[in-house]
């Protein structure tokens, strides 16, 4: 009897599950979001393929020469290449990493662990978030004022010594300007990494008699390191791709007499150029000399490769650290 009761329940329960209508709206929605994905990927793919195809004439025949060559007035030139741009972009990356990283991490740790939760702290946080959204041209202007020109603030605080130190229109000025540009991003990502440290680790350290600074060095920094590192690397790749601030700081597109080796630090306080600037210049030259279109495409491929390398390093580092953390 019990059995038959269960039987009827099951029977009744199993009816009514058949599909009564086709879900039109659902299907349409799926089609729309899928096409959004396809369109964005397609645009990227076309762009990439077109660039590589254009770049092929340079990269297939004289890739090494192209990487080692310098700015030239004609595109058919055995010595045409991007090394001066690589030099600029490389050192910009170095200055960004070596200044924005320590300052950004320091500021983030202060804000997260030391600053009292006050209105002022909240305001500072808001300002930093907004600074991350300020257009890069504005930072270029700041760099011009701070590091390039012999300016004075409020008419009496002279900044001539800064311009003297950087050599004015130099890689050093450009690197420092871009460091200021990415500083808010580094601070924000580092803050997030610091915030992600489990409170159990902090309490554990405090409970064993660690001081605040010991806790920061032994718990927060090791735990937050992967997040901080990836944030910094992504910020670096952003800095390397910027062109607008460099134009203001005075990157030049011709008349560079030297073509120094990458690690030759003697060119840091001299006139400079960078990869994005070279790309802009060659694209604008292609009306006069069509060969520059291909050179520009090749320079884009080099820049993309550089940025991709940085991003991949960031991802690899994060994965490795995360595995280690268990």
């Amino acid at each position, binding site marked *: 009897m019990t059995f038959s009761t269960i039987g009827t329940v099951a029977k009744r329960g199993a009816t009514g599950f058949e599909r009564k209508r086709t879900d039109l709206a659902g299907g349409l929605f799926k089609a729309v979001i899928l096409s959004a994905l396809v369109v964005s990927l397609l645009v990227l793919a076309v762009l990439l393929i077109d660039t590589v195809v254009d770049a092929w004439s340079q990269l297939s025949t004289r890739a090494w020469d192209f990487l080692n060559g310098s700015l030239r007035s004609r595109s058919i030139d055995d010595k045409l290449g991007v090394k001066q741009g690589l030099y600029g972009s490389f050192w910009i990356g170095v200055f960004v990493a070596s200044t924005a990283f320590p300052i950004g991490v320091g500021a983030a740790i202060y804000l997260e662990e030391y600053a009292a939760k006050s209105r002022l702290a909240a305001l500072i946080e808001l300002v930093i978030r907004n600074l991350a959204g300020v257009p890069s041209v504005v930072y270029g202007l700041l760099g011009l004022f701070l590091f390039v020109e012999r300016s004075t603030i409020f008419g009496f605080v002279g900044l001539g010594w800064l311009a003297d130190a950087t050599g004015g229109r130099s890689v050093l000025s450009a690197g420092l300007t871009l460091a200021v540009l990415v500083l808010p991003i580094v601070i924000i990502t580092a803050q997030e990494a610091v915030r992600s440290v489990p409170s159990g680790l902090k309490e*554990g*350290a405090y409970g*064993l008699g*660690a*001081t605040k600074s010991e806790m920061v060095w*032994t718990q927060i920094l090791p*735990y937050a390191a992967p997040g901080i590192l990836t944030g910094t690397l992504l910020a670096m790749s952003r800095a390397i791709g910027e062109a607008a601030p460099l134009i203001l700081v005075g990157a030049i597109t011709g008349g560079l007499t030297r073509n120094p080796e990458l690690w030759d630090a003697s060119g840091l306080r001299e006139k400079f150029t960078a990869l994005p600037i070279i790309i802009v210049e060659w694209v604008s030259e292609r009306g006069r000399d069509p060969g520059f279109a291909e050179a520009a495409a090749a320079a884009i491929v080099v820049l993309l490769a550089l940025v991709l390398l940085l991003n991949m390093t960031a991802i690899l580092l994060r994965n490795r650290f995360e595995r280690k953390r*268990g």
Partner: protein
Amino acid sequence: MAAIDDLTEGRGSEPLGEMAAESPAMPEVVFDVEELSVYYGEFQAIQDASLKVHENEITAFIGPSGCGKTTLLRCFNRMNDLIETARVTGSLRYHGVDLYDSKVDAVEVRRRIGMVFQKPNPFPKSIRANVAYGPRVAGLAKKGPVMDDIVENSLRKAALWDEVKDRLDDNALGLSGGQQQRLCIARAIATDPDVLLMDEPCSALDPIATTRIEELMHGLKDDYSIVVVTHNMQQAARVSDRTAFFSVDVNPDSDNRTGILVEYDSTQQIFSNPSDERTENYVTGRFG
């Protein structure tokens, strides 16, 4: 207010004022808490708690959620200092020294008074580095044979040595939950503290791991005074010498919930013959 008299078993209650530490049968007082209240901003977490914790005993804090037992425990090593809005009034003396005196360094307090947390929280480092952490920040030892001795002794005391002696350099996160908690106990005793504070040390563990920790606590009692917060009444009955029962006082006007110490007595007394009705209701499972 309930009886918070300090009792020696079988002797019955004595008036508060006369129960000085001189009484020969009484173990020495480690913590002397008087009228302690803790506030988080406007919110009062616990009101006017008074009790004495004795040397080489296990004192259990029991009570429902939100009764302030963990808050009180966290006063004992000044962990509440880490919460910006926390404020403590009343007096809390440790071997006669006022822990909340302005001259007292909270970091130094935490080196002497170890703490084990609710959720095992080993550092994501090697087993050895976990145990060595406290002695290292305290400057007791750096590396070498001295530190090796500290590590071995601490792990032995925490009944973990035999299980990990061959893999001291493995990551501590590879241990089971119960092993991790024993590692946290080893880590806490490595700084050679005088007191161990345990905040629901078994709540994240299975029954077998819980039993091991309880056995361990019995063994540790000879060397340390232990204060344990627990949700588990049976655990309090099994391991502790004295039990403090806390409850929540709801203010009918403001609906504010404040923790209060209802009764503090020998564990036997609390569980067999409590003097307060609320305690009886709680320990017999008729709470609320």
